[in-house]
């Protein structure tokens, strides 16, 4: 049971280290998927939003970590 718990914890940790980064990415992906599903934007705009949004999320996280002076 303990080994199973460790494996589950490790599996979760594979994708989530900084919870704000993971959450921001998931929100971005959900918004992008919703916009495409509702056909509010075309696919080329979606591609730009997806790529630029992901990079922006990463940069914001790095800048915040840098300001706080820790990871």
């Amino acid at each position: 049971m303990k080994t199973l718990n460790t494996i589950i914890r490790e599996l979760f940790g594979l994708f989530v280290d900084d919870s704000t980064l993971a959450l921001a990415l998931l929100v971005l992906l959900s918004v992008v998927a919703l916009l495409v599903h509702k056909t509010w934007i075309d696919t080329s705009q979606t591609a730009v939003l997806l790529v630029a949004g992901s990079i922006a999320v990463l940069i914001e996280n790095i800048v915040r970590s840098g300001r706080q002076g820790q990871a």
Partner: protein
Amino acid sequence: MLDWIHAGPSMTAAFVASTVEVVEAMTIVLAVGTVRGWRSALLGAISGLASLAIMVLLFGPAIAQIPLAMLQVVVGALLLLFGMRWLRKAILRYGGFIALHDEDAAFARETQQMRGIAAREGRAWDPIAVATTFKAVMLEGIEVVVIVLGVGAVGGMLAPASIGALAACVLVTIVAFLLRRPLSLVPENALKFTVGVLISAFGLFWFGEGIGISWPYRDAAILGLAALLLVASRLAVAYLRQTKSRKQVSSLSEGAIS
């Protein structure tokens, strides 16, 4: 005929990511083997590998049953989370905000821990050694399996991704057993940085495909996405280094004033 524009990045991503994971597992196997004996250390490692193989055999065919678009969305999202996590850590390490991973220190820590636990006399196998290497191989191996399935399962590139991962396992094992010491010279942060960029690019590509984006230049777009992520990450590293040096200068001047 293998499509190398797509197979190349899949194989490279699996090889580089697996190298990082295998080096970490190998450090523990070497520490346990050196202190508690090779027979038990290798039994645990081989049992871990066998368990991983069973896991792949169980989950591999199940993945093939999932509709392609759903698989692309789920795998894409997971790869993006996984890749960005590695990339963030590698950027913070390059920027000097978190310490670099030190295999020599990990080896010393594990060796000390193993010495601290008394071995039971008269036993053919050392259960502590078997359990420790089993757990190490299993946990690091799960990451390798996730990477191989992630970069390989969606685009029909499971074979190149598996070859990449297998090559990393064989290479690291041979080098580790020739040297009989942790592979601290492996540039782990550079590898993690590269993997973070590649895996994130795969994640964006597959998620986009899954929701209906038709990328320009099709599969070759992965390389373009990787290039964009690389540029952004290099800029982030430069920003962190500048922030760090500014903080050092201001703390030095504060010290001089007081």
